[in-house]
C-alpha cells in the first residue's frame, strides 16, 4: 500500500499506480437512484491532481437534465425514507461511519490526490471527522424527541420533527469529503433525500465514497451529480422540486442561492467564508512552556490545508510588547514547514487546489507588497523536483502590515498570513471586528477573564479560545455578518435546518367554543 523511503517516511502510491490503496477508473458517472448513470448529453470533464497538474480520471459534465433525473430518484425515495424509523436511520448513519472508518486509508489517499492536502491531514482529520460526523447525527437521530405542551387541561400541542423532503446541497473543494459529511449527515438524519453537487475541481472522492456506501443507503436517498456550478448548481438551486438549499462558497453565489430560495419560498443555509483574526496577548510569552509552544503552533495553523479553509486564521493580531519575540519563534516554526509530495506522511503542506488558486495567491502577495506590506517569509513557489515541479505549490508566507490593506480584508484562501500589532484589549477588539466577515476567530491568553471578554466581544460564529482549527461535531459552526446564514455541526442543524416543525393541536374536550 505504501513504500518507506530511505529517511523512514511512509509514502503512498498515487491512485491507480501499482500498490496504491485506491483504484481509479478512466471514467466515473453520476450516482443517481443507487445506480451509476451516464450524463444525458454524454459529456465529461477532466479531473486533475494538483500535485502534478495531470489528469487522472474524468467525471460527467452534467446538465439540467441530469439534475432532473436525480430529483426524480430523490422524490421516488422520499416517502419511504421519511417514514423510516429513527432506529433504522440511525443504524444506516452508523453503518456509513463504520464503512468510512474501515476504508480510512483508501479515502484519505483519494482525498489527498484529488485536493492536494497532505495525507497526514486526511488520515488524522478529514476522514476520522467525516466518520464521526455521521455517528454524531446517528446519535442525535436515535435520541430525537418531540415535545408536548399542555395548553390547558384538555388541550395539548404535540410537536413533531418532520422531514423537509428533497434537499439540494452544493459543497466546496477544500474539504470535499468532510464538507459532504457535514451536509449529508443532518439531511439524511432528518429523513430527507438529497441531490448533492461536489466542486468541479474535486468531484472524485465523493464518488469513491458512493462506491463504498451505495448499498448501505436506500436507492434515491443519496444522489450525486457532477458538473459546472453555472449549469447544474443553478439548475438545482432554482428548482421548485427542492424543499431547501444548502451552499458553501463565495458571497455572490451565496447571494444568488438566497435570491433563488426567496423566489421559491424555501429555506437556505449559506456558509460564505471569512477573514478570521487570531489574537495573541502578551501573557502568552510569560513563560517558556507547553502553552507557549501551543500558541506558536496556533499562529502557524494558517498553513493548515495550505490556507484553503473558510476559517483560516489569516489575520494574526499580536500585542506589540511581545511582537518581536513571539514572531521570531513563529517564523522559525514556519520556516521548518515541510512541503512536497502530499502522499508522503511527513509532508506538512501540499499544493494549492488548482492553478487559479495559485495565481490568485501570487497576485495577492503582489497587492500586499504594493500596499506597503513587509514580506517576512515565503512569497514565492518552492523549488521542488520531478513531477512535483509542475504542482501548484506555494511557500507559507507572512506579510506584516495594517488592517486596512486588502490582504487583511479579503479571504486569500492560501497560506498567506497578514500580521499586525495592537496596544491593548480595546484595540484588539476593534481590529478583530474591522472585517466584513465573522466566521471564526482565535484568542490566546493565560488570563481566563480576558479570554472570556474577548470571546464575547468578537463578532464571529466560532471563537476558538487557546486552540484553533478544531471541528468537533457538537460545537455549532456558522457565520456572523457576510459569512453566511445558518449553523452546522450540532443538534439544531438537524432540528432547525433539516426538519419541519409540525404542531398537532388537539382538544380532548367536548365543549364547543360557543362563538357560533
Amino acid at each position, binding site marked *: 500500500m505504501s513504500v518507506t523511503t530511505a529517511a523512514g517516511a511512509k509514502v503512498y502510491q498515487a491512485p491507480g499506480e501499482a500498490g496504491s490503496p485506491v483504484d481509479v477508473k478512466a471514467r466515473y458517472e453520476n450516482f443517481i437512484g443507487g445506480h451509476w448513470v451516464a450524463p444525458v448529453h454524454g459529456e465529461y470533464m477532466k479531473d486533475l491532481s494538483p500535485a502534478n497538474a495531470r489528469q487522472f480520471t474524468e467525471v460527467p459534465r452534467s446538465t439540467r437534465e441530469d439534475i432532473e433525473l436525480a430529483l426524480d430518484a430523490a422524490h421516488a425515495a422520499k416517502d419511504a425514507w421519511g417514514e423510516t424509523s429513527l432506529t433504522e436511520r440511525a443504524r444506516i448513519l452508523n453503518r456509513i461511519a463504520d464503512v468510512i472508518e474501515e476504508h480510512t486509508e483508501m479515502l484519505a489517499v483519494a482525498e489527498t490526490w484529488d485536493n492536494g492536502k497532505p495525507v497526514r491531514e486526511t488520515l488524522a482529520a478529514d476522514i476520522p471527522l467525516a466518520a464521526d460526523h455521521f455517528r454524531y447525527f446517528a446519535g442525535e437521530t436515535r435520541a430525537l424527541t418531540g415535545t408536548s405542551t399542555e395548553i390547558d387541561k384538555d388541550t395539548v400541542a404535540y410537536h413533531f420533527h418532520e422531514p423537509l423532503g428533497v434537499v439540494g446541497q452544493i459543497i466546496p473543494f477544500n474539504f470535499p469529503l468532510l464538507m459532504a459529511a457535514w451536509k449529508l449527515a443532518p439531511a439524511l438524519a432528518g429523513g430527507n433525500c438529497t441531490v448533492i453537487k461536489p466542486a468541479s475541481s474535486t468531484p472524485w472522492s465523493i464518488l469513491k465514497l458512493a462506491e463504498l456506501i451505495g448499498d448501505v443507503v436506500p436507492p434515491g436517498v443519496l444522489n450525486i451529480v457532477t458538473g459546472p456550478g*453555472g449549469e447544474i448548481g443553478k439548475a438545482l438551486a432554482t428548482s421548485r422540486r427542492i424543499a431547501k438549499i444548502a451552499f458553501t462558497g*463565495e*458571497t455572490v453565489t451565496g447571494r444568488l442561492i438566497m435570491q433563488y430560495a426567496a423566489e421559491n419560498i424555501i429555506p437556505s443555509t449559506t456558509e*460564505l467564508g471569512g477573514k478570521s483574526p487570531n489574537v495573541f496577548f502578551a501573557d502568552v510569552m510569560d513563560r517558556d512552556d507547553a502553552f507557549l509552544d501551543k500558541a506558536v503552533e496556533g499562529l502557524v495553523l494558517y498553513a493548515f490545508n495550505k490556507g484553503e479553509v473558510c476559517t483560516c486564521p489569516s489575520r494574526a493580531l499580536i500585542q506589540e510588547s511581545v511582537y518581536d519575540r513571539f514572531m521570531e519563534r513563529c517564523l522559525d516554526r514556519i520556516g521548518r514547514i515541510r512541503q512536497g509530495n502530499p502522499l508522503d506522511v511527513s509532508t506538512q503542506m501540499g499544493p494549492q487546489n488548482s492553478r487559479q488558486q495559485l*495565481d490568485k495567491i501570487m497576485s495577492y502577495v503582489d497587492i500586499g507588497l504594493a500596499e506597503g506590506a513587509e514580506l517576512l517569509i515565503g512569497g514565492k513557489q518552492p523549488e521542488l523536483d520531478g513531477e512535483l515541479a509542475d504542482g501548484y505549490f506555494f511557500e507559507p508566507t507572512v506579510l506584516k502590515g495594517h488592517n486596512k490593506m486588502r490582504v487583511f480584508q*479579503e479571504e486569500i484562501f492560501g497560506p498567506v498570513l497578514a500580521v499586525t500589532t495592537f496596544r491593548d484589549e480595546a484595540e484588539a477588539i476593534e481590529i478583530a471586528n474591522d472585517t*466584513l466577515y465573522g466566521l471564526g476567530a482565535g484568542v490566546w491568553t493565560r488570563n481566563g477573564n480576558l479570554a472570556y471578554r474577548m470571546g464575547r466581544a468578537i463578532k464571529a460564529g466560532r471563537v476558538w479560545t487557546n486552540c484553533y482549527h478544531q471541528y468537533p461535531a457538537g460545537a455549532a459552526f456558522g457565520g456572523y455578518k457576510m*459569512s453566511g446564514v445558518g449553523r452546522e455541526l450540532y443538534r439544531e442543524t438537524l432540528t432547525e435546518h433539516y426538519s419541519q416543525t409540525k404542531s398537532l393541536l388537539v382538544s380532548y374536550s367536548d365543549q364547543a367554543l360557543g362563538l357560533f
Partner: protein
Amino acid sequence: MASTGGRPRIDRVTATPAALAALARLRERRGAVLLYQSGGCCDGSLPVCLEQGDLRIGDGDVLLGLVGGCPVYIDNRQYAVWKHTQLIIDVGEGEPEGFSLPAGDGRQFVTRSRVFSPAELASLQETGASCRFTEGEPSS
C-alpha cells in the same frame, strides 16, 4: 488611465483584451451579461459573470464601471475596503466553482488588481469618481 474630452479619467475597472473578447463572445451567445466582484470563501476573489437580470441589483451595489459595455459591480461594503485599488478583469485557467458563466475554452474570469498612486487617488476624489454610480441602468 483613459482620456475623455481632454480631461484625464481614471477607471476603477478595466479589462484585458482576452477578457473583452470573452465577454463579447458571451454576449453573442447569451445576451447581456454583467460581472459582480465576489468575496469570501473558495473562489471569493473572482468576478462572477451572470446574465443580466439573474442577480437582483440593489441599492447596496456599486457600479465600478463598464468594460466592453459590460457593467462591473461590487458590494458597497467590499468597495469600502477595495477602493484604493483598480480592478483589472482578465481570464485565467480553470472552471468557475460558483454559478459564474465560464469565459470559454476551459477558462474563467479573474480579477487582477493594481494599487492606485496617491496622485490617482487624489484625482479620483476631485472628480468624484469614488462615489456611487448606481443611478441609471448602464447600457451594454
